[in-house]
């Protein structure tokens, strides 16, 4: 019997065709650019035992977006989307501040605990609501969550009576301005959530099942996967991350602004996920990519601020950079760059068939289009796609 070609299994090789690699390079370029334009950018100083400097600001300011983006990654992997995270964030902030503000002992840790607990619980309920609409009633996710996106902000303002509520509670403020081991508490918290999610999806079968539901829901259902509960769960989870993010952002300024807090954060979160290489069509996802995506966005913002780009040019500047990042991500361009690199190395390697069908887009028909192999050993492009965090 003829041999089937066997390939060395390369699970941990750096695959130049993976979107994650390109996201990482984009981030690197951005950082180098900063270092050149802005010599002070990497200047870290230690003050009262805490780290300060632009990189720390980037990490701290990315925390809420990143947190939500992690939840959003899972939602998107199931073919969904959640537009309501901004509203949930606002509600969480509004609820917690209203509780602190209205309590008889606004500065006690117990009050903070009640406030945090209630806010998180409200977040879970809202997530359950979204999940219910999507997985049980069967409304398209974008519309189902649009409902809460609109009404949720109203609810938040109802809670605060349209006012910006301020309150000082040391325990609560720690969420916004505290430090752990010299790092801002927000960063540490986010890292923690990230690690838990990574462990949950990689150490258990959750990741695979989510991908199965996102790739072929009917096949997953017939294989006995609890598609409905999985879908439901990811919506609950993303709302939870939004609620945590709400606590952070509001604690950060010691005020709950129901109308403006987290405005457009859903777009940032989705953008981060997509820059990280996860397809909105559902299926395979990459948490590493999401982290990189969020970092790219935040670094970009911080760059424009520290560079002092004139206000009227800020958006154009960001647009141009983001377009550049996207172009790098384009499978065709990556393939072309990858080929150039490869043929420079070995000219004997045969040309790989290029997609010929018009319109092979996210799920190409052709072998070559999903990922151009760096060389013949990259037999399983998608297993190497995923970084350590998946």
């Amino acid at each position, binding site marked *: 019997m003829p041999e089937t070609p066997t390939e060395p299994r390369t699970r941990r090789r750096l695959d130049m065709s993976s979107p994650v690699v390109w996201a990482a390079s984009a981030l690197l370029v951005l950082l180098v650019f900063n270092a050149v334009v802005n010599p002070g950018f990497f200047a870290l100083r230690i003050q009262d035992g805490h780290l300060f400097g632009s990189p720390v600001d980037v990490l701290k300011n990315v925390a809420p977006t990143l947190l939500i983006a992690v939840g959003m990654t899972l939602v998107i992997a199931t073919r969904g989307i959640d537009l309501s995270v901004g509203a949930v964030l606002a509600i969480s902030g509004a609820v917690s501040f209203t509780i602190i503000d209205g309590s008889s002992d606004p500065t006690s840790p117990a009050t903070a605990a009640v406030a945090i607990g209630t806010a998180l619980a409200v977040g879970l309920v809202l997530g359950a609501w979204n999940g219910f609409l999507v997985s049980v009633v069967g409304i398209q996710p974008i519309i189902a969550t649009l409902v809460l996106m609109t009404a949720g902000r109203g609810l938040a303002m109802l809670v605060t009576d349209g006012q910006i509520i301020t309150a000082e509670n040391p325990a609560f403020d720690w969420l916004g301005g505290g430090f752990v081991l010299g790092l801002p508490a927000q960063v540490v918290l986010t890292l923690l959530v990230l690690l838990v999610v990574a462990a949950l999806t990689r150490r258990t079968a959750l990741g695979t099942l989510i991908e199965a539901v996102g790739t072929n829901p009917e096949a997953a259902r017939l294989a006995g996967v609890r598609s409905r509960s999985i879908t439901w769960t990811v919506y609950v989870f993303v709302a939870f991350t939004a609620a945590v993010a709400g606590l952070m952002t509001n604690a950060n300024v010691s005020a709950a*602004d129901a109308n*403006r807090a987290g405005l457009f954060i859903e777009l940032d979160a989705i953008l981060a996920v997509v820059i990280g290489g996860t397809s909105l069509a559902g299926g395979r996802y990459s948490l590493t990519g999401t982290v990189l995506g969020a970092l790219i966005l935040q670094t970009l913002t911080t760059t424009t601020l*520290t560079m*002092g780009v004139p206000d009227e040019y800020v958006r154009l500047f960001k647009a141009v950079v983001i377009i550049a990042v996207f172009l790098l991500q384009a499978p065709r361009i990556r393939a072309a760059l990858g080929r150039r690199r490869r043929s420079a190395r070995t000219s004997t390697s045969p040309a790989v068939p290029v997609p010929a069908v018009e319109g092979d887009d996210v799920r190409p028909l052709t072998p070559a289009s999903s990922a151009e192999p760096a060389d013949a050993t990259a037999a399983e492009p998608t297993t190497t796609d995923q970084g350590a965090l998946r």
Partner: protein
Amino acid sequence: GSSDSGSGGSGGGGEDGSITMGFSQVGAESGWRTANTQSIQDSAEEAGIELQFSDAQGEQENQISAIRSFIQQRVDVIAFSPVVETGWDSVLLEAQRAGIPVILTDRSVDSEDDSLYETFLGSDFVEEGKKAGEWAVENWGSQPTYVAELQGTTGAAPALDRQEGFADAIEGTDNIQVVASQSGDFTRAGGREVMEAMLNSNPQINAVYAHNDDMALGAIEAIEAAGKVPGKDIQIISVDAVRDGMQALADGKINFIVECNPLLGGQLMDLAEKVVAGEDVPKRVVTEETTFTQEQAIEALPNRQY
């Protein structure tokens, strides 16, 4: 506060002598705006004017369609705070054809034909910027001052005007230099993030001009986190004089606030009654506004309504 959602349904007043006013508000984008709404609602009740209130959620098209629906409902007088200055001619013309007088509040429109509205009641943003600038010249002009300007939403009229007024006032004062200028979107979070970045890139900054109190409050957080003392190491001017801002002023964290008074409900109702009765009113009514230093703030704080 919240209002009774069941109270609508009765348009077309006038027959029984009471006045019906259609009021289209920009939205509820800030504490200032909520205070403004509150004042209008309270004053209407006090004056016995029936208020048809509509919130535009920050969108001009919603305001236009709200005004159209006021026209359909045959209200006696229409008042609104335009989202943006331009683009009101058509709908104002419709109101005029329907014989309904219009009062502008808070922000003006740039219509060439000023017969389209009866009067404009509101503050002058350029003037506010000027007042801020004049105080800066007086108090900072003597030593080198590096100002960080926290702008409002890019393209919004208050942001543009406050920037312009301030720039006019400090022109020619060599010691005062605006070294960084970024939009903080009128929010605390925006103010904080922008200030953090500015402090990193421009360590010499020793003064802040914020287009509203919220951004100033956000900046204070950033300044404190960076280990500096707001109001001393870095002096702050801001605009609005909402309660939290006044508190910070009284606490010495802000140095000077230009008031932008949201409580124009009373004046509005007076004007409305006159307009409906056919009396003459001035084309421009400026709201009574002042400025606050730290001492004045301590004094004024207990009686502050918003």
